[in-house]
């Protein structure tokens, strides 16, 4: 069950984080906020971040835990700066740093392919496209609506409500920490611990939710091939994707395809809106 100390700390994280974020968000109305308010917001948010870090459990070895804390703090702080920067370009760049830190965490968890894939897809392609669009859209100075947050109070409230729900849900299923000296160091052990979340609800062995969580716990990194030798990383991942998660993969593919068709439909010129406007020439070749 939840200890009182944990509960107080968690509430402190939420309250400090929400206040700090609210103070740091760029507001639309009135003049720009004084520097001092930003500073106070940054201090509060930083405090919340440090308190939040006390809930994390780093991997056992010293170097790994150093990287774990560095990447995690960078990811959360980068996320905060993404939403509070006044300049959209800076927001996009902070977002890129969030993606890079997250893939660092993936690497620490042993998911090499996921880490590289995240960097290629998000940092390498999507955020560059963001930058491209922002730069092209802002040739004549920055528009005020791009420099301000929309309804910062309500946004902060709803986001931190969601954060609280997630945080609380994870806190109550968190099992007691290992006694000092007994560290979680193997990947397998860590996977088993994530499975304890499901079992702590006391689900029956044949309950579908339990089955799914058992399946999710299976180690795809170390699948064996026919001759019982471990397969390389990506082969295991591919096998898991195209056997157990085939429908999800197909659905995602279909979604992207539909989006592609939609983009083509939007991009083709339309009939004039008002009578008298010149008719656009139909595309002779695409």
């Amino acid at each position: 069950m939840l200890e009182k100390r944990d509960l107080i700390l968690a509430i402190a994280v939420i309250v400090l984080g929400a206040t700090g974020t609210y103070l740091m968000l760029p507001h639309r109305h009135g003049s720009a906020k004084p520097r001092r308010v930003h500073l106070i917001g940054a201090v509060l948010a930083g405090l919340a971040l440090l308190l939040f870090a006390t809930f994390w459990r780093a991997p056992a070895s010293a170097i790994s835990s150093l990287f774990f804390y560095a990447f995690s703090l960078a990811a959360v702080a980068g996320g905060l700066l993404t939403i509070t920067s006044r300049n959209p370009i800076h927001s996009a760049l902070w977002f890129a740093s969030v993606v890079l830190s997250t893939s660092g965490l993936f690497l620490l968890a042993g998911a090499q392919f996921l880490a590289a894939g995240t960097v290629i897809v998000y940092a390498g392609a999507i955020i560059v496209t963001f930058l491209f669009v922002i730069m092209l859209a802002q040739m004549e100075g920055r528009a005020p609506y791009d420099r301000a947050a929309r309804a910062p109070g309500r946004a902060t409230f709803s986001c931190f409500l969601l954060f609280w729900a997630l945080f609380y849900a994870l806190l109550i299923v968190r099992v007691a920490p290992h006694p000092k000296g007994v560290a979680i160091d193997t990947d397998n052990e860590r996977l088993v611990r994530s499975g304890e979340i499901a079992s702590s609800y006391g689900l029956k062995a044949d309950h579908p939710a339990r089955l799914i969580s058992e399946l999710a716990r299976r180690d795809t990194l170390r699948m064996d091939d026919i001759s019982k030798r471990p397969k390389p990383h990506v082969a295991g991942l591919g096998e898991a994707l195209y056997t157990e998660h085939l429908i999800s993969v197909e659905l995602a593919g279909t979604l992207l395809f539909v989006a592609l068709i939609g983009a083509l439909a939007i991009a083709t010129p339309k009939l004039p809106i008002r009578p008298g406007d010149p008719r656009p020439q139909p595309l002779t070749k695409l």
Partner: protein
Amino acid sequence: MLVVIGILIKILVVVGITQGAVAYMILLERKVAAYSQDRIGPNRCGSNLVLPGGFRLNLPFGLLQPIADGAKMILKEDVIPSYVEKPLYILAPAISIIAAMIGFAVIPFGPVGTQAPSGVNFQIAPGVDIGIVYVFAIGSLAVYGVILGGWASNNKYSFLGGLRSSAQLISYEIPLGMSILGMVLLAGSLDLNTIVNYQDGHGLWLTRWLGLPAWGVFVQPIGCLLFIISAFAETNRLPFDLPEAEQELVGGYHTEYSAMKFGMFFLGEYLHVITVSYLTVILFFGGWDAPFLNQIQSDWFSGLLKALVLLVKVGLMVFFMMWVRWTIPRFRYDQLMDLAWKALIPIALVNLVATAAIVELLRSSH
């Protein structure tokens, strides 16, 4: 601890050698350019050198030119215009060079693992399963240096260069990634070393029948061609050097940069050329494979010989890239995009599907 020190030494050696190589690549580039245009090129530096003690040294080909070039870069005044966005302006060349350097971590410079002489691995980070994907991930970050440099300079020529570059690099990453998948399918691994070992092996029946080695260029000729074309575009080399097209954009994204900041962009570009040449050789030209070398030899002599063979092949590839620069004129922007989206990507897709089908047929016939 010993492992960490070993890795640190390896990193230092690789960084040192590649930086030195870049210096001499610039000399080579100037020489190749000169001979292509029927000039002589730099030939003074190092000739008639009087050393302390009265020794006279007469080095040919302007061999000390790189030192003069480097000194010039470092000693020039570092101008930061007042209208730039300063943090990003300074960050951009740093990103450019870091992205070019850390790609080397998984590239094998010679035999690796059981085939290497005991106690040494010609690779900074051995045992990375996803080798080639890592290189692509790092390569996809290199675009930030260019796009940020162009934007932070607050200059329309730089900005146009940055925009062109971002579109070009994103477009050409797709055929670049798809062109290697054929080799990955054949070798059954993303690990660069496994791919080299595959090329040392038997290969397909066609190459065996013709008596050719199973190098990528023979078993995946289309993939090889696509890879080389896309690699030229990824490194911003002619005929794809639109981001810095001097005749149109003054200097493109690095117009506003001076002294060593400009030098860092330059260094990053040449390091990228080295990385791409290594990848081309490892994926499509057999890596360290030569008629008299195979996987079983693991003594010191053959280990060094393999590294040397690889180095010679990479040198030839670098020379090829410089040669092409003076052979083919620059593309127009729309031609560049058409080439990527309407030619290279469909061909790469067809090649991938065909290779997958053939690999599956051969596997099931065993």
